[in-house]
């Protein structure tokens, strides 16, 4: 069973998404801020990471930068999930920060459940 670490400060979103991913046979570990997320990722060594961007303690971009600079973790496919303004996300982040954080995929929140599952499965199939 593939393991996913989902990091998002919105508890409701986390729980609903956990149900969704579990129904597709994923094991889901939740974390509610960036720092906790990084700890869980280091402990769990998951097959995939989903990171919200705006979080307390440490934001998703920064978590991703650290992940991708760590030889032990950088191969884990990482999806950035963000509710920041659509246009800002596209122009500002995917082009500048995005390239630099080297995340493997970006999803703008809100996301349809089918779309999220599709993107997760696509990233895992690449291996």
């Amino acid at each position, binding site marked *: 069973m593939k393991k996913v670490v989902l990091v998002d400060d919105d508890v409701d979103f986390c729980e609903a998404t956990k149900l969704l991913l579990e129904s597709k046979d994923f094991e889901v570990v939740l974390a509610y801020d960036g720092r906790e997320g990084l700890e869980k990722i280091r402990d769990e060594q998951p097959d995939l990471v989903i990171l919200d961007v705006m979080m307390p303690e440490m934001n998703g971009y920064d978590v991703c930068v650290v992940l991708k600079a760590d030889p032990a973790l950088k191969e884990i496919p990482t999806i950035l999930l963000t509710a920041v303004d659509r246009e800002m996300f596209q122009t500002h982040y995917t082009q500048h920060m995005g390239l630099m954080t080297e995340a493997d995929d970006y999803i703008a929140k*809100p996301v349809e459940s089918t779309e999220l599952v599709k993107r997760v499965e696509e990233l895992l199939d690449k291996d």
Partner: protein
Amino acid sequence: MLVTPSINILVVENDITIMQKCRELLLDEGHRVRTAESVEEALDIIQKQPGDVDIMLLSLELPGWGGITLIETLQKARSEILIMTMSANCGEEAIEAMHAGAYDCIRKSFTTDRFWTKMNRAIEAFRLRHQLDILTQQRQAALSRVHQDGQTLLSVLNSFTDALLVTDWQTNVVLLNDTASRLFNLNEEKAIGRPVSVLLESDELLSFFIRAMKSDGDLAKLMAGEEPVIKTRDKTVRVHVDPVKNKAGAVIGAVALFHDVTRVDAMDHLRADFLSMVSHELKSPLSSLLMQISVILDGLAGELSPKQTDMLGKAKEKTKGMITLVNDILDYRRLKEGKSIQKIEALNLAEVLQHTVELMRLSADEKGIELTPEIAEELPSFSGDRGGVEAIFVNLISNAIKYTPKGGKVKVSLNKEGKGIRLMVVDTGIGISEEDIEQIFEKFYRIKTEQTRRISGSGLGLSIVKGIVEAHGGAVHVESEVGNGTTFIVSLPGKG
């Protein structure tokens, strides 16, 4: 697209036919070519402008002072020119030339293919050698030299009220001022040489250093004024990290300034960007709502009765309507502030459209609507704002899907139109009456009929489309017949 820089090539050959042939072949590929008919002439060119020759194509059958002597002379002078020789049959003399330092030999009876096989290898070798040189320089530029560069500089740095910390390109500390030692309670001797993340116990800080060193000029500008606040070792500091570059422009380290804001009210640090705050505060809960409803609808939280499924389905549609509304208001506000174009860049419209169509495919499928993109093979090049162009596509396609009954068709096409590009979105939907058509681009205008009552929307989508299209110097118009569908036509100017 990445443009490969051209290479400066000097052809040294006294046989005019061969010289011309080489010259034409090289010029055709966009390289800069100079010619010399003798070794003396070649040396003259190289000595006058040593940096102006990258590769030399040298005949080994020159009269007088031979080609081999020239190779040896250049080698002695530690010249960086890559030498490719030419001779009738690349025999003994070619081997001797290679011993002297030449890269390879081309037979003078070459075919175009043969010529390029060898030349391309030489060009590639030159480029690799060149890159290697840059890398070596970069590594050798030891930042620690700063330390020896006199006490004056250090006294200046120590007078800063802000803490200053410099690392090498591997984020090991090479320099810190007194304020830094005091603020973080560090012993300078012990701090030097240790990784900054370990020293200051902050992964977050590490991310700023990595980011600063990977950044280019654009990013530095983009980040200007964005100074993150972090907590480390019971201090709250505002951090600013910049890359340190050597004279050649290569990044050799990073310099960080820390301003102690431990006592400043934490609320100050919230992002002041109103748009992203509104967006985040509204979209986060909506996002949870959408996910929760979807999960319940999928039966993942227990069986549902048909009535519950029906009502939740409607709740889901309303939620999605709210999301569109938030997006539209943000788009519209941006338009009003003249910010609909944030960054002009070369865009591959075909690719942007493909991507948008894929995003919309789900909602088309849900309504059983056939959504087909038709993109012409060769489109004029276009420059514009990616987010804006995507907003045009998203709005027009989602409208077409919304106002087309189940089982209908939506065709999206991109074609050449003179020097520009024409986007057409054709649907088989309910159509727009003549009275309404004049007002659909007005803000908050929504057509109210029996058929549109259940369709949600903000009435902003089309005024956004019009605003963005016009900001790109284009025009949008619409043709429609009630009951027979609608066609939106957007004309965008090509580049240049």
